[in-house]
C-alpha cells in the first residue's frame, strides 16, 4: 500500500472517530456440546479510509469476526463479551430495524462465492437497483442509472448489457465485480471483504485486487479484508491482524508485521510460504509442526504453545496471555509472553538441505498430443450441429526420471483433460503419449495392465474428496497394493500399508481410522501414500496442496519432494500458483486454453524473454514479501470459453501486445530461445528478448535470505 496511507493510519487525527472499533470482543457458539468460544478478546480499531487485513488459517475465527460485525451470527452464535462500536455506537444495543438500515447501506459485505451472493432468478439490474430503492427510496429509473454508473466504476465493459443479463450469463470475475458494485452502491462507510478472490483465477484475481485498491482511494471506504493469503493482504491493506485459534496474535502495520514480526506463529507462517529465494534443495520451506487445536480443545495459556519452538513450560501454558504493545511506537502488538526475550533476527529452524537430484532418462514423452471433444447440440434422436471443444491442442513436452515438471495454467487451460488422457480415462484424438516405449494415447485404462497402471498414479486436489468416507484408511491403501499385485499375501499387504504410513509420517493406528477422523493435511498424506503404493514411475499431482492451510501446505509439499527424491519418481505438478511452482519445479510448461504457450526451465520461465501470458501470470501472483517489486501487467477481459476459442493465438483476446490482423487470425509459431525454452508468440524475437523482468527482489536483510 502507499506510504501516505500507511502514515495516515499510523497517526490518526485525534478528532476522528473510528469507523469501527472492537473492544475485547468475545464470540461463542452454543452447541449441543456446550459453549464453544470462537473468538476471544479481539480488539480492532479501523479509522476512516483505512484498510485492515485479517489473516489466518481455517477455523481461526476470522469469518466469525466479520459475521459479528454484521450482527449476523445465526441462531447459535452470540457475542458474549466486549463491544462492537460502529461510528461510536455499540451495535449490540441497536434494534433489529436499525441494524437492517445499517446493513447494506453503511456496512456492506462481499463474500467468497459470487454466484451464491447473487439471486439467479433476477437480472443484475434489478438486484442492483434494489439497494438504492430500499435504502434511499429513489425511483426505479434513478436506481438503474446509478447502478449503470457503478458498474462502469467497477470497470465492467458494456454496463447496459450486464444490467439486463442474469448472473449465470456473465463470468465469475464479472460476477464478483457486480457484487462489489452492489456493495458500493449505497456508498458504505465500511466494506467487509471475506476472501473475495479465492474462487477466481489468478489473472482475474489481480484485476479485482487492483479494483479494491482503487476503490479505497476513490471512495474513501474503510475496508476489512479477510484472507488466508498474506500476499493479497500485502497488496491491499495498511494494517494487518494475524489470527490464530480464535485470538488475534499479532497486530500492526504491514511493514512492521511483514519485516519485523514479533510472534512465533507469524514467523512460522512466513517461513512456510514459498517466496522468491526459497528453493527446494538449498533453502527448503519450514513447516509449523502439529495442528491447529480444535476450538473446544485449546491448550491452557498460549494457544500456539504446543506448536511453538520457543515454548517454555510454566510460562506459556498458564493463565491468559495478553496482547503486549511492542516498544517501537507504531501500534504494533503481539500476544506472546516472551516477546522481549526471543531473538527475532535468528534464522528460523534449519530446513534440511539436500543435494539437487540429477534427472535421468526421458520417462514420459508427449508428442503432438491432441484431445478434441465433439459436442452435439440436439435432443436424443435428432442430432443437431456438432462443434468441437479443443481441450488439448498439439501438446509437446517430455519429463525425465526424478524430474519435477510443472504444468501451469488457469481454469479451462486443459490440464485436467491432459491428466485424464494420461490416466487412461479418455483417449487422445491424435498424437502420442509414450511411457517408456509404450504408447498410452489411445489405450484406455481397462486395456492397460496392472504393471502400466501402477507406473502412473495421481494425487488429487481436494483432500475431502480424495478418500472414500465409508472405508478405513488402511483398507483403501491395501486395496491399491492388492490391485497392483505388489503383494498378495495378507500379512505382507498389511506390513506394506504400515510401511507406507511411516513414509508419509502418519501414526500406524491411522490404518483403522476413517477419513472423517483425519484433518485435511492428513488426508492428503494418505492420498500420497496411496499414489506411491505401487512404486510408480510417474506421479501426477493435481494442485495437491492448494486446498490446505498454509502451515500444512509446506509439510505436505516437503513430504512429496522427499518421497520423490527417495524413489526417483517423475512428478508432473499441476498448479496455478507460480510461487509454489517456482519453489519446486525443475521445468515449467505454461498452458492457456489447451495449448502450450511457453516451456523451459524454471529460471528461463521466471526471467525474460517471457510469453506475454507468462508475464501477466507472474505479475498476478501475490507475493508476501515487502522487498519484492513487481511490474504491473493487468489483463483485461476474461478467459474465453474452450468451446469457442479465438482463431489464431488463444491469448490474442487479452494480450496487451496483440498485433491486429496477425495474432487474431494466424496460430503463433513456436520460437526456440535455447534448447528446451520455447515460446509460442508472433512477437519478433528481439521484442520478446527485450522484456523487463516482472519480479525484482530488493536487497533484503540477511535474516530472511
Amino acid at each position, binding site marked *: 500500500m502507499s506510504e501516505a496511507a500507511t502514515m495516515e493510519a499510523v497517526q490518526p487525527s485525534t478528532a476522528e472517530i473510528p469507523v469501527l472499533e472492537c473492544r475485547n470482543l468475545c464470540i461463542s*457458539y452454543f*452447541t*449441543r*456440546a456446550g459453549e*464453544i468460544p*470462537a473468538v476471544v478478546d479481539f480488539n480492532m480499531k479501523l479509522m476512516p479510509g483505512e484498510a485492515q487485513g485479517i489473516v*489466518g488459517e*481455517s*477455523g*481461526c*475465527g*476470522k*469469518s*466469525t469476526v466479520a*459475521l459479528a460485525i454484521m450482527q449476523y451470527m*445465526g441462531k*447459535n*452464535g452470540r457475542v458474549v463479551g466486549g463491544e462492537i462500536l460502529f461510528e461510536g455506537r455499540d451495535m449490540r444495543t441497536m434494534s433489529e430495524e436499525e441494524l437492517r438500515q445499517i446493513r447494506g447501506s453503511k456496512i456492506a459485505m462481499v463474500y*467468497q462465492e459470487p454466484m451464491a451472493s447473487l439471486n439467479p432468478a433476477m437480472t443484475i439490474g434489478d438486484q442492483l437497483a434494489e439497494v438504492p430503492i430500499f435504502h434511499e427510496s429513489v425511483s426505479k429509473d434513478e436506481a438503474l442509472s446509478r447502478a449503470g454508473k457503478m458498474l462502469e466504476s467497477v470497470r465492467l465493459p458494456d454496463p447496459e448489457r450486464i444490467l439486463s443479463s442474469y448472473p449465470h450469463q456473465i463470468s465469475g470475475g464479472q460476477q464478483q465485480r457486480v457484487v462489489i458494485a452492489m456493495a458500493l452502491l449505497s456508498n458504505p462507510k465500511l466494506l467487509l471483504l*471475506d*476472501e473475495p478472490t479465492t474462487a477466481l483465477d489468478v489473472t482475474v484475481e489481480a484485476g479485482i485486487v487492483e479494483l479494491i485498491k482503487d476503490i479505497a482511494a476513490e471512495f474513501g471506504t474503510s475496508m476489512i479484508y479477510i484472507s488466508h493469503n498474506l500476499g493479497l493482504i500485502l497488496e491491499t491493506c495498511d494494517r494487518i491482524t494475524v489470527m490464530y485459534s480464535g485470538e488475534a496474535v499479532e497486530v500492526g502495520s504491514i511493514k512492521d508485521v511483514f519485516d519485523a514480526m514479533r510472534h512465533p506463529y507469524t514467523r512460522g507462517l512466513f517461513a512456510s510460504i514459498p517466496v522468491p529465494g526459497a528453493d527446494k534443495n538449498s533453502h527448503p520451506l519450514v513447516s509449523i509442526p502439529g495442528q491447529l487445536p*480444535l*476450538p*473446544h480443545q485449546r491448550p491452557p495459556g498460549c494457544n500456539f504453545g504446543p506448536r511453538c519452538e520457543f515454548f517454555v513450560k510454566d510460562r506459556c501454558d498458564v493463565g491468559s496471555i495478553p496482547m503486549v504493545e511492542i516498544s517501537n511506537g507504531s501500534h504494533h502488538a503481539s500476544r506472546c509472553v516472551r516477546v522481549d526475550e526471543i531473538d527475532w533476527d535468528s534464522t528460523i529452524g534449519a530446513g534440511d538441505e539436500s543435494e539437487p537430484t540429477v534427472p535421468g532418462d526421458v520417462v514420459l514423452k508427449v508428442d503432438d498430443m491432441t484431445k478434441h471433444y465433439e459436442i452435439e447440440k440436439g435432443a*436424443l434422436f435428432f442430432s443437431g450441429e456438432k462443434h468441437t471443444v479443443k481441450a488439448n491442442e498439439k501438446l509437446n513436452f517430455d519429463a525425465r526420471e526424478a524430474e519435477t515438471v510443472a504444468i501451469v495454467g488457469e481454469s479451462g487451460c486443459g490440464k485436467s483433460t491432459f491428466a485424464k488422457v494420461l*490416466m*487412461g*480415462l479418455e483417449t487422445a484424438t491424435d498424437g502420442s503419449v509414450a511411457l517408456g516405449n509404450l504408447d498410452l494415447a489411445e489405450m484406455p*485404462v*481397462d486395456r*492397460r495392465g*496392472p504393471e502400466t*497402471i*501402477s507406473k502412473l*498414479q*495421481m494425487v*488429487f*486436489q*481436494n483432500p475431502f*474428496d*480424495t*478418500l*472414500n*468416507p*465409508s*472405508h478405513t484408511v488402511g483398507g*483403501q491403501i491395501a486395496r*491399491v497394493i492388492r*490391485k*497392483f499385485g505388489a503383494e498378495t499375501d495378507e500379512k505382507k499387504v498389511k506390513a506394506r500399508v504400515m510401511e507406507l504410513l511411516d513414509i508419509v509420517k502418519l501414526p500406524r493406528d491411522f490404518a483403522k481410522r476413517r477419513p*472423517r*477422523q483425519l484433518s485435511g493435511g492428513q488426508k492428503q498424506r494418505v492420498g500420497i501414500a*496411496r499414489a506411491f503404493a505401487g512404486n510408480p514411475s510417474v506421479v501426477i499431482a493435481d494442485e495437491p496442496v492448494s486446498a490446505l492451510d498454509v502451515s500444512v501446505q509446506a509439510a505436505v509439499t516437503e513430504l512429496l519432494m522427499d518421497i520423490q527424491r527417495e524413489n526417483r519418481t517423475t512428478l508432473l505438478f499441476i498448479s496455478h500458483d507460480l510461487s509454489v511452482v517456482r519453489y519446486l519445479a525443475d521445468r515449467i510448461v505454461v498452458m492457456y486454453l489447451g495449448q502450450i504457450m511457453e516451456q523451459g526451465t524454471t529460471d528461463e520461465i521466471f526471467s525474460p524473454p517471457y510469453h506475454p501470458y507468462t508475464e501477466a501470470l507472474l505479475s498476478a501472483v501475490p507475493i508476501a514479501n515487502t522487498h519484492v517489486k513487481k511490474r504491473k501487467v493487468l489483463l483485461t477481459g476474461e478467459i474465453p470459453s474452450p468451446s469457442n476459442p479465438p482463431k489464431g493465438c488463444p491469448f490474442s483476446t487479452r494480450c496487451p501486445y496483440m498485433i491486429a490482423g496477425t495474432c487474431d487470425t494466424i496460430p503463433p509459431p513456436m520460437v526456440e530461445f535455447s534448447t528446451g525454452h520455447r515460446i509460442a508468440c508472433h512477437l519478433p524475437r528481439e521484442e520478446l528478448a527485450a522484456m523487463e523482468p516482472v519480479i525484482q527482489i530488493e536487497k533484503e536483510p540477511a535474516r530472511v535470505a
Partner: protein
Amino acid sequence: MAVVTAPPPSVSLMHRLKNPKAAVTIFVIAWLPLMLYVMGGSALMAAIEDLTGFRPNADYILLPAIPAVLLLYVICISAFRESAIAIIGATLVFFWFFIAVTAPYLPLLDPNKPIAPFVPPFTAKNDVFFILGTDFKGRDMLSRTLWGCQRVLVWGVSATFVAYIVGTAFGLIAGYISGWWDEIISFLGNVILSFPVMVLFIVILNYLGASGFNIVIAVTFASAPAIMRIVRGLALDVKTRDYVFAAQTRGESALWIMVVELLPNVRGPIIVDACLRLGYTTVAITTLTFLGLGLQPPDPDWGLMIKESAKTAMLFKFSYMLLIPALSVSSLILGFNLMADGLREMSMRD
C-alpha cells in the same frame, strides 16, 4: 470457513449404532424367525414332520426373536437418543414388532374362534372380560388386533426391502454407467411412474392373483422406479468425487466401483427414505387387503378387519370394530414416519 458449528468430531448415523455389524446381526435374528413364521411356518413344520415323523410347535420358531427384538430396541433408543421424535417413532414401531414376535405366547383368546358377537369394549360376557370387545362374528378384537400386526409388518417390510434392492441396483447402473443404460432405465421408470399406483397394484394383483408374494412383486414394481431415481441422483453426485476417479484410474471394474465406492456413500439418504416408504407400503397393503386383493381370510389382518366390519360399523355403537384396526395401522405408519423424520434430522446435524 471459520464458523464453528459442530464441535465434536461428527459421527455418522451408522457409526452411532455402536457397531453396525452387530446391530445388523441382531436384526436378522429378530427378523428371520418372524418372516419364516408368517410366510410358511406351518408348511415348514409339515415338511419337518414328513422327514422326522415329529411335528414341532411352530411357535418355537419365534423364541430367539423375542430377546433379539428387545435388544434391538435398546440399541435403537441409545442410537437415537438425541432426537425425541425418532425415539417416539422407534417406540411405536418396536411395540408392534414385539407384539408380532410374542403373539403366540401372550394370554390371548383364539383370534379365529367366535365366542359372543357384538360385545362392546370393557364388558364381560359369558364369564369372559373383553377389553376391546368382539366383532360381528363374536371373535375377540384384542386378540385379532394384536395378531393382525404380524402379516402387515412382515409383508410390508419384505416388499419394501425387495423394492429397495431392485431400485438401488437399477439406480446405480443408471447413475454410474449412464449413457444408453440411463436412457432406457429412466424411460421405463417414467412409464411405470406415470400409472396411478393403486391402478398398478390392482392390475398386477388381478393378473397374478392375491397373495403375499404377489404383493411383494406389485410393491416392487410400483416403488422401484422412485427408488431408482433417488439412487441415480445420488450416484450422479458421488461419481464425480476424486475417490471414484482414483478407483477408475487403478482399473477397478464398474461393478466394484458401484458396490464398494458408491453404495456405502449413498446409503444415508436411502435409509431415511426407506423408513418413509415402509409407511407407504403399509398403507398400500392394508388398502389392498381392504379391497380383497391382498391377504385372504380368515387369519386376522388389519385391512381385513376393517373390510369385514365396514358395514356393521356404520352404526355408531359398533364403530369400535373399525376404529381399533384403523388406529393400529395409523400408529404403525406414524411410527415409521416419525423414525424417518428423526433420522433425517440427525443426519442433517452430522
